[in-house]
């Protein structure tokens, strides 16, 4: 099938980055929104990387900057948002410096994105087949009927029953789970090397969520693409991702391999987050809570953005922003005191 052939071709090209394993590297990304109430410092100094074929998760509460980070990676931040600084290296090129014409070749073809609400990201007046075929003919020089054939194949690939007949249906004729499948097949239409999935299952029921995640996992394995999964659900991260970045108030506070971070969370926020979730497999009498609420990003706390809610905070925390420092080979923490805090554990 065409899909498989192409993904092999992509792999042969190789990348000009010094580290051949890294597909995307985000460095010091800063995005602000200039609103009438003031400057919203939505993302500040965010750095992370995604390896080839890796399932990377970005987790955090609402308003912590996960989505803005993802949109910035594709230079899709709209007015009043502005990318203030930083670099996003994709295959050695800085995406943020590319001309509109060039970045359009990457968007949807090499890096594609699926969103939380599939109904509002599909056009209600075109059939799903047209919308999938549109992406294909935009990036490749193919005839209309060939594009439609490919659309049907893609719909079969993501498990839409009777794809041959349903290709001419409109988005409203599909259920939520089926719409998200349409979105995935559209995102896959040009065999991307990176799929950004922004809360892809939040609007769906758990049994449908399980279906969709299984499809994404399966496709990732089959085509060897990388996935950036954005979610607020620590369970989804644990079951799907290899590495994870935890965001709080526009900063990344910790990144690590999933197996490491669940066993040994170092940042007080990560620890608090994990202790706050009710567990299906354990019976917990009282959940741990965090005092206060998430920071207002128009006037964020100085220093570590978590310090007003942190029980270990010192005066240093209020003054100096803790950098994301390497703790072990695949574990980075942005906390001045994580070694003391976790001393008893170590």
């Amino acid at each position, binding site marked *: 099938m065409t899909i498989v052939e192409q993904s092999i071709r992509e792999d042969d090209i190789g990348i000009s980055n010094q580290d051949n394993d890294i597909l995307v590297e985000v460095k010091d990304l800063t995005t602000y929104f200039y609103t009438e109430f003031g400057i919203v410092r939505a993302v500040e100094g965010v750095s992370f990387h995604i390896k080839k074929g890796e399932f990377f998760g970005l987790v955090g509460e609402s308003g912590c900057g996960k989505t803005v980070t993802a949109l910035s990676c594709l230079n899709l931040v709209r007015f009043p948002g502005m990318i203030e600084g930083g670099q996003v290296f994709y295959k050695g090129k800085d995406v943020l410096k590319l001309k509109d014409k060039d970045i359009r070749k990457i968007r949807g073809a090499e890096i594609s994105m699926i969103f939380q609400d599939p109904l509002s990201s599909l056009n209600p007046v075109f059939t799903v087949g047209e919308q999938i075929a549109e992406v294909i003919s935009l990036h490749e020089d193919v005839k209309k009927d060939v594009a439609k054939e490919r659309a049907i194949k893609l719909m079969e690939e993501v498990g839409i*029953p009777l794809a041959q007949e349903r290709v001419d249906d409109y988005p409203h004729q599909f259920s939520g789970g089926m719409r998200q499948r349409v979105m995935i097949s559209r995102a896959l239409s040009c065999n991307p090397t990176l799929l950004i999935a922004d809360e892809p299952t939040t609007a769906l*029921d*758990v049994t449908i969520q*399980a279906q969709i995640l299984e499809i994404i996992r399966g496709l990732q394995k089959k085509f060897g693409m990388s996935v950036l999964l954005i979610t607020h659900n620590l369970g*989804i991260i644990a079951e799907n991702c290899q590495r994870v970045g935890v965001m709080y108030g526009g900063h990344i506070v910790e990144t690590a391999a999933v197996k490491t971070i669940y066993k040994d969370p170092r940042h007080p926020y990560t620890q608090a987050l994990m202790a706050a979730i009710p567990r299906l*497999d354990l019976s917990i009498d009282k*959940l741990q*809570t965090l005092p206060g*609420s998430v920071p207002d990003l128009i006037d964020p706390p100085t220093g570590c953005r978590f310090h007003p809610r942190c029980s270990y905070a010192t005066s240093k925390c209020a003054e100096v922003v803790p950098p994301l420092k390497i703790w072990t080979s695949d574990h980075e923490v942005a906390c001045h005191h994580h070694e003391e805090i976790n001393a008893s554990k170590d």
Partner: protein
Amino acid sequence: MTISNQTSTDIILETKNLKKSFPVYVKGVVRKTLVGYIRAVDDITIKIRKGEVFGLVGESGCGKTTFGRVVLNLLPPTSGDAIFDGQRIFDMKDRKEALWFRKQAQLIFQDPYLSLNPRLSVSEIIGEVFIIHSRGMSKQERRERVVKLLNLCGLEDYHALRYPHEFSGGQRQRIGIARALAVEPQLIVADEPVSALDVAVQAQILNLLKDIRKRFNLTYIFIAHDLSVVRHISDRIAVMYLGKIVELAPGEDFVRNPRHPYTEALISAIPIPDPTLERKQIILPGDVASPLNIPSGCRFRTRCIYAKQKCSEVEPPFEEISPDHFVACHYPVESKLF
């Protein structure tokens, strides 16, 4: 000892063959034509015990919210009966009886943004309860009661003069809880009380709900789609599928030893934040059937991986298959998921 035993098994609310269906019309040029009924609650017979947290889970559209509204007499049932503390609640015709029932049973809503009147201050929102239910209470006393309720729910005195838009989602949910507690009810139906909240805030509200329940010996019907949340707070858990309760069991038993194939799949579909946990995952095929066109026999059979001939012919009865464990399935599974 005997007394406490007896009260713990006392039934606070009992439903008998409770049904609620909504007519569905297609609007034409001249007239509306009835195309069918959505059977949102379809023949539910259960007993809710005094002082327990009765968790009700199910996917969207399964009828769990409708069930909550019907047992509070906020929606008239199509047929069936509900008995609260020995009184048939659907028979209450006069205002006095209706007010009595409202004092006994209250509702906490999902959306703390929509369930508070934006034009009233918090003291008015909660004080309104006393104007209706405790006529003749002095202004001074009303104010004191409001502040007491706010403190109880983790809010400060000065919050009484503020308006809903000045609060965060979690704080608004606290106001909703304070309002429900104002009449000192016995039963609270909490309809997705934490689904609009972030995990850290969710934990605060869950702890609060647990605390006040212990303190006032309340009974909850806790409706949510998130099984981890329901399992955390509930004593017994019931699963609904297309208007019917298909399984009911004590929390621990429910999670460890589900007997209905739907429950089994539901539990296995919940992502667990432990990457080292190895477990069986069952992915259900297809979507929930349309509630307009419920499958014959067992309504789950269209998605059931174990379905046999009998399942499409005979509707399985809701039976107690082991002590306190009720299932509606011809071929209950033996499953150990953890």
